C-alpha cells in the first residue's frame, strides 16, 4: 500500500504567542472582558454551529424554512379569532391581525430562543465532556438561529404592513434598538437557564408553562393601555417585566409611528444591563464544573 503523503506537518514556529494559564475558577467582573475576547477567536465555530442549527432544524421537514412563517401566522389567526372576535379587545383602530402579529414576531424569537437555548448544554453533553470551547457558544447559537427566524418573520410583517397600507415614519428606526435590548435579554436568560438545567432538569420541564404565563404578562394580544389600571403592587410587578418595554415599544415605533415610551423602555434597559453580566458570571461558574456533573 502506498503510504500517503498528502499531509505534511510544518515544523512549528518558535516563540508562539499563545500562552494559556488554567487556574481554579475565580470569578470577577474583570474576567468577563477576557471571556468576551476569547469568544472572538471562536467566531468560526459560532458561525458554523449557528448555520448548523438552522440547517438541521429544517432539514427533514417538508415545509422547511416556511415553518418560520407558519408558526407566527398560525398564532395570529388563533389570537385574532379569540381576542378580536370573541373578547373584542380594542387596539386603537389598528386591524387586530396586524396588531397581534407585530407583537408575535419578537415574542416568537424570544420564546423559541429560550426553549431551544435552555437545553443547549444538556443536549450537547457528549461534546462538553470531550472537547473544550467556551460553552456559552452553545446557547448563543440558538439565539442566533432565533434571529434568523425573526428576520423571516419581520419580512412577512413588512409585507403585511405594505398590503394594509400602514403608514411608516422615521420612528421605525428605533426598532433595531428594541431588538438589541431584546437580544441582550434573551442571551442573559438563556445563559442562566441553560446553566441551571445542567443540575436541575426541572427548568426544561417548567419552560412551556413559564412561557405561557410570561406571554400573557406581556402586551402581545392586548395593548399596554389595557392594563393601565392595574392595582399598584401588581402594576409595578407588571412593569418590571423587561419584555413589556421591548414589545410595547416595538409596536409603537413600527406600527403606530410613535416615539418610544422611554420610561418603560428604561426599565427593560436597566434590568438587562444588570442581568447580562450577572448571568454571564453565573454561567462561567457553572461551566467550570459542567463536564463533571452533566
Amino acid at each position, binding site marked *: 500500500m502506498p503510504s500517503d503523503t498528502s499531509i505534511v506537518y510544518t515544523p512549528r514556529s518558535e516563540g508562539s504567542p499563545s500562552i494559556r494559564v*488554567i487556574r481554579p475558577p475565580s470569578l470577577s467582573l474583570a474576567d468577563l472582558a477576557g471571556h468576551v475576547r476569547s469568544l472572538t477567536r471562536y467566531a468560526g465555530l459560532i458561525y*458554523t454551529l449557528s448555520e448548523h442549527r438552522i440547517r438541521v432544524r429544517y432539514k427533514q421537514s417538508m415545509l422547511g424554512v416556511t415553518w418560520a412563517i407558519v408558526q407566527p401566522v398560525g398564532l395570529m389567526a388563533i389570537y385574532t379569532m379569540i381576542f378580536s372576535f370573541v373578547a373584542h379587545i380594542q387596539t386603537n383602530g389598528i386591524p387586530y391581525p396586524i396588531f397581534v402579529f407585530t407583537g408575535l414576531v419578537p415574542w416568537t424569537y424570544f420564546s423559541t430562543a429560550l426553549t431551544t437555548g435552555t437545553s443547549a448544554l444538556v443536549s450537547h453533553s457528549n*461534546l462538553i465532556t470531550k472537547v473544550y470551547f467556551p460553552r456559552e457558544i452553545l446557547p448563543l447559537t440558538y439565539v442566533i438561529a432565533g434571529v434568523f427566524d425573526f428576520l423571516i418573520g419581520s419580512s412577512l410583517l413588512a409585507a403585511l404592513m405594505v398590503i394594509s397600507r400602514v403608514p411608516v415614519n422615521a420612528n421605525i428606526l428605533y426598532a433595531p434598538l428594541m431588538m438589541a435590548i431584546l437580544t441582550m435579554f434573551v442571551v442573559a436568560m438563556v445563559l442562566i437557564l441553560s446553566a441551571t438545567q445542567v443540575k436541575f432538569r426541572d427548568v426544561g420541564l417548567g419552560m412551556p408553562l413559564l412561557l405561557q404565563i410570561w406571554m400573557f404578562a406581556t402586551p402581545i394580544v392586548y395593548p399596554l393601555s389595557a392594563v393601565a389600571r392595574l392595582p399598584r403592587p401588581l402594576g409595578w410587578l407588571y412593569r418590571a417585566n423587561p419584555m413589556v418595554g421591548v414589545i410595547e415599544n416595538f409596536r409603537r415605533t413600527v406600527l403606530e409611528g410613535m416615539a418610544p415610551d422611554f420610561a418603560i423602555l428604561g426599565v427593560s434597559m436597566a434590568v438587562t444591563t444588570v442581568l447580562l453580566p450577572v448571568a454571564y458570571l453565573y454561567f462561567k461558574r457553572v461551566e467550570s464544573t459542567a463536564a463533571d456533573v452533566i
Partner: protein
Amino acid sequence: MRAERMIDLRFDRVSKRYLIPHETEDRGSLHPWRRRLRSLWRPPREFWAVREVSFAIERGEALGIIGHNGAGKSTILKLLAGITTPSAGEITINGRAAALIEVGSGFHPELTGRENVYLSGSILGMARSEIGRKLESIIDFAEILEFIDIPVKRYSSGMYVRLGFAIAAHLEPEILLLDEVLAVGDMAFQRKCLDRVRALRQAGRTIIFISHDLNAVEALCDRVLLMQRGEVIADGPPGEVIGQYKALATKGTTSLFPSMGPMREWRDVDAPGDRVVRLRRVRVCGEDGATMSAVDIRNPVGIEITYDVLEGGHVLVPNVHFFNEARLHLFVVLDLEPEWRGRPKSAGRYVSTAWIPGNFLSEGSVIMGTGISTLAPYESHTYEKDVVTVRVFDPMSVNSARGDYTGPFGGVVRPLVSWNTYVSCDGSSTR
C-alpha cells in the same frame, strides 16, 4: 537571560476534586422529595482524582501517561484540554493544544460527511478557511470519497471512525493530547494513524499520550509518567517506568479488587488444606510463564496451582472456579489430564496449570477460586475462594471476537466461533 529549552506545558501542584452527592441512601421511610432535599444540603463526599501533581514537558517531547483505571490519567487529559478546571494549582500551556479524547467528536448524524467535516473541524479549533483548504486531503485520508455527501448516520462504524480521525490528523496542533484513540479501526488504519502521530513528532510537536497499550507507549514516547491513585509515582524513560508499572501490577496493588492480585502464596504454617494436601501458591500466567495481572483477550491464560501432597495414595483433582466482577459463577474446570486421571499421587510438591484458551473469557476482571478434591468418593480437601484475579482486556485490534465493532459487548464469555454462510438457491421453495 540564558536560552533555556522551551517548556510547553507545566503542571504546578494541580489537584482535582470531584464531589459525589449522597443520593442513593435508601431510607424507605422518607418521602422521595424529602430525600432529594436532604441530598441538596448534605455535604457531598469528596474524591480526589488528581492530587498535587507537578511536571513539565519540553517542546517536542512525547510524554506517555500510564496507570491502571481510575489512577487519574484521563482527568489529567481533561484538565489539559480545558474540559474541566482544576480545584487547586495551576496549568500553563504554551501553544495551541488539541485533545483527541474521542474520534468523531461533534458529528451530527443528520448532516452529510462534508458538513460534518466543517462542524467537527471548527469544534476542534480549525478555521473555516483552513477546513476548506484541507477538505480534499481529509476525504482522501478517510477513503470515503463516494460517501462524503450522504448523512453520516448511514455510515458504517469504520467509515465514521476513519472520517473522525482524518479530521483530527489535519489539526496540526502545537500540542497533541491523545487518549487511547489509536485503538480503533482495522490494522492498516491503525498503522496509518500511528504514522500521523510520528510525523507530528518529527515536526517537533509536543505529544501527550495516554494508553493501556504499553507497546504503543514504549514505541511512541520518550518519557513516561506512572500514576497511581491520583499521584505521579514514577517519571522517567519508558523502559524503566513501564517495568515499574509491571512490577506494581504483579504485586496486585492495581487490581479492581485490592485484596487480590495475580498471585497468592502461603507460608508453611497457614497453607490451606487438610492432612492430605496443602495449597502453596496460585498465580495467573501467560504462555511465557510470566505472572500477569492483565491479559489480552486473544491470548491463552494459565492458572498455575502449586500444592504439597502430605499423604500419598489419594487421587487428587485440582479445580478452578471462575467468577466475573458481578460475582457470577462463570464455570469450573477440573484437571482431567489422562496422565494423572485416576492415578494416586505420592507425597511431594506438584504444579498443575489449567489453560483457558484465548478468545474465550469476556472483557473485565475475572476472579478465581481454587480447590483440590477427590472425586469418587467425593471429598473436598481444600477450597479457597477469591484467590487470584486477572483483568481481561480487548486491544480492539479486529482479530478478537469483536471484529470491527468497538461498542459495548455483553455476555459472560466471549468465544470466537466459526461461521458458515452459503448462498441459498431454494429460498423461494421454502414457503
